[in-house]
C-alpha cells in the first residue's frame, strides 16, 4: 500500500497520450500485466477455498448444521440438469419466467424512481424555496425503511403486483432523489457564475450547468438505487409476490426444495450484478468527459 503499484495506474498515464497505441494493444498489454501479477491466481485460490469448504463441510465431513444445507454438487447438478428433481434449472422455462418477472418489476420501479427522483432532486438542489417546503416532508418519511411499508402497501394497492413494485420504487426513489440533490449542491458556484457572465439565462444555466454538473452524483445515486431496488424487491416477493426470484426462494423453503433456494440466491446475485453493471456502463458513456479525465489520473 505504501509502495506505488504501477500496474494499477491507468495505461494512459504511461503513454505520451498521443494515441500511438491502438486500444486493442492497450487492452492486450493490460491483460498481460494482469496475468503477470499474482491477482488471478490468488482469486482462484480464494474461490477454491470457498467452494472447497462448502463441498467438504456439507458433503464429505457432514459437519453438524452444515449437513442439512444443500451441497455444492447437489446444487450444481440440479442447476445444470435437463430433468431437475426439484423443478428448476437452466433448461426449464419457468426458471426464466421468474427471472423475467423480477427484472420487469425492477425495470418499472427503477424507471419510475428515476423519472420522478431525478427531476425532484434537481429542483430540490436548484431552488431554495422548493427545498424549504418539500424537503422536510421528504425527510419525515425517509427514516421508515421501505420494507416496513409492506403491509400498508398491500392495503393501499390492490392485487399483488402493484405493492411489490411500489416497495421497490420507494427504495430507489429515496436514493435517486437524495443523491441528485446533493449533486446539484456540490456544483462549484463558479460554474454558475461563469455561465451567467457569459450571458446564459436561468433555464440555460439549468440545462447546461446544473444537469451535467450533477450527473456524477446522479449516477452514484442510480447505482445505489439499483442495489436497494433488488433488496426491497426480494423482501416484497417473499412476503406477497407470485413469481419472481424472491418468491422462488421462499416457496422452495416451504416446499422443502432446498437446492432451489441456493439456485435462486445465485441467480439473484448474478442478475443484480449485471443490472448494476449496466447502470455503470451507461454512466461512463454519458460522462465521457469524466471517464477521460479519470483515465488521466483524476485532475480534480
Amino acid at each position, binding site marked *: 500500500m505504501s509502495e506505488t503499484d504501477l500496474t494499477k495506474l491507468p495505461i494512459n498515464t504511461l503513454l505520451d497520450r498521443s494515441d500511438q497505441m491502438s486500444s486493442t494493444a492497450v487492452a492486450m498489454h493490460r491483460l498481460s500485466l494482469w496475468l503477470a501479477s499474482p491477482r488471478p491466481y490468488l482469486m482462484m485460490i480464494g474461490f477454491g477455498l470457498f467452494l472447497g469448504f462448502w463441498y467438504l463441510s456439507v458433503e464429505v465431513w457432514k459437519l453438524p448444521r452444515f449437513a442439512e444445507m444443500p451441497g455444492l454438487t447437489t446444487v450444481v447438478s440440479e442447476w445444470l440438469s435437463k430433468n431437475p428433481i426439484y423443478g428448476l434449472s437452466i433448461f426449464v422455462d419457468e426458471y426464466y419466467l421468474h427471472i423475467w418477472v423480477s427484472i420487469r418489476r425492477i425495470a418499472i420501479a427503477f424507471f419510475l424512481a428515476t423519472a420522478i427522483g431525478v427531476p425532484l432532486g434537481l429542483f430540490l438542489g436548484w431552488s431554495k424555496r422548493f427545498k424549504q417546503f418539500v424537503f422536510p416532508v421528504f425527510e419525515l418519511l425517509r427514516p421508515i425503511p421501505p420494507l416496513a411499508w409492506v403491509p400498508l402497501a398491500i392495503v393501499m394497492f390492490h392485487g399483488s403486483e402493484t405493492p411489490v413494485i411500489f416497495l421497490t420504487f420507494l427504495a430507489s426513489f429515496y436514493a435517486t432523489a437524495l443523491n441528485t440533490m446533493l449533486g446539484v449542491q456540490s456544483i462549484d458556484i463558479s*460554474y454558475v457564475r461563469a*455561465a451567467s457572465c*457569459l450571458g446564459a439565462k436561468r433555464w440555460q444555466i439549468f440545462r447546461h450547468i446544473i444537469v*451535467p454538473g450533477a*450527473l456524477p452524483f446522479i449516477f452514484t445515486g442510480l447505482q445505489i438505487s439499483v442495489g436497494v431496488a433488488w433488496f426491497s424487491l426480494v423482501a416484497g416477493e417473499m412476503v406477497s409476490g407470485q413469481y419472481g426470484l424472491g418468491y422462488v426462494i421462499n416457496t422452495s423453503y416451504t416446499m422443502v426444495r432446498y437446492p432451489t433456494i441456493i439456485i435462486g440466491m445465485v441467480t439473484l446475485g448474478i442478475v443484480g450484478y449485471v443490472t448494476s453493471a449496466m447502470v455503470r456502463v451507461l454512466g461512463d458513456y454519458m460522462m*465521457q468527459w469524466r471517464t*477521460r479525465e479519470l483515465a488521466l489520473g483524476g485532475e480534480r
Partner: protein
Amino acid sequence: MNPTSASVAVSALPGGAIPAQAARTGKVRIIDAVKYYGAAGTGVLAVDHCTFEVPAGEITVVVGPSGCGKTTLLNAIAGFHSLSSGSIYLDDEMLCGPGKLKAEPGPDRIVVFQNGALFPWKTNIENITFGPMMQGRLTRAEAYEKARDMMADAGLRGIENNYPGEISSGVRRRVEIVRALMNDPKILLLDEPYRALDSLTKSVMHEALLEIFYKNRVTIFFITHDLEEAIFLGHRVVIMTTRPCRPKKILDIDIPHPRDYSVLTTKRFREFMDETAAAVHEEATKAFAAGEKER
C-alpha cells in the same frame, strides 16, 4: 506556439501609454464603495469606502492579502454581489449604485476565476462557443469558426475536442481567457487566476496573457496577492489594506510594454519592488497576525 517570440503587432509607446488604435472602452470607476457582510452595524466590513479608477485599455492590478476583500470588489463589478453603498460605473454607465445595489452579470464583464471555471462536461470548443451561443449572437457555425480562429491565434490548435480535464492547468487558463474574449468584453476581471500554479509556470502564463493583451487591448482588472506579478503585468497597481480593504497606495508603472521576463531583473523593476515591498509586507503581517486562513 512560443509565447516568448511575442510577435507583437502593436508598437509600444513609452511609458506604457495606450496606442491610438486601442479601443477606449472598459473604463471602470469605483466611487466610495462599501460592503458589509451580515447586518449593518454588527456585520463584517469587507470593503471600506473604496474609490479608484480602472483606465480603459490598460491592465490594473489590485494587490492585497488573501481575504482582504478584494474579491468582494470584483464580485460587485461582475454582479455576483451587491454593494452596501457607493457606486460603480462602466464607461459612464452605472452598473450599480444608489437604488440598484447589485449589478446584472453580463457578457461585457467577464470573470476568469481563481480555480478556473471551464465546464468540465463540455469540450474546449464547446466551452469557448458557450457565450455567443447562449446569447444567441452567433449561429453555431459562425461561433465554431470564430472559436477555431481564436484558438489557433492563441496557440491552442489541436485541443478543440478535448475536455478541459485532459489538458494541463496552464493550457486550461488560456482556454478560459479565449472563452472570455469570444464575447468581445469591455473588461476582463481576473480573480487570482494563476494562484494554484507554480511560479515558473506562472511566469510563462504572464507572458501569454500579455501577448493576448497586446493583440486585443482589452481592459483588464486583475486581482492578486503577489507583488511581483502585479508590477510585472500592470500599468497601474493598487495596493490594498488588509480587511476592510481600502486603497493604500496607487502606483503607475512606467516600465515600457511589451514586457518579458527580463523585466524582472531590471533596475526600474527593482525600484518599484523596493518602493512597495514595505507597504505590502506590513499588510501581510497584519493579516498574518490576525490568524487569517490563507486558503
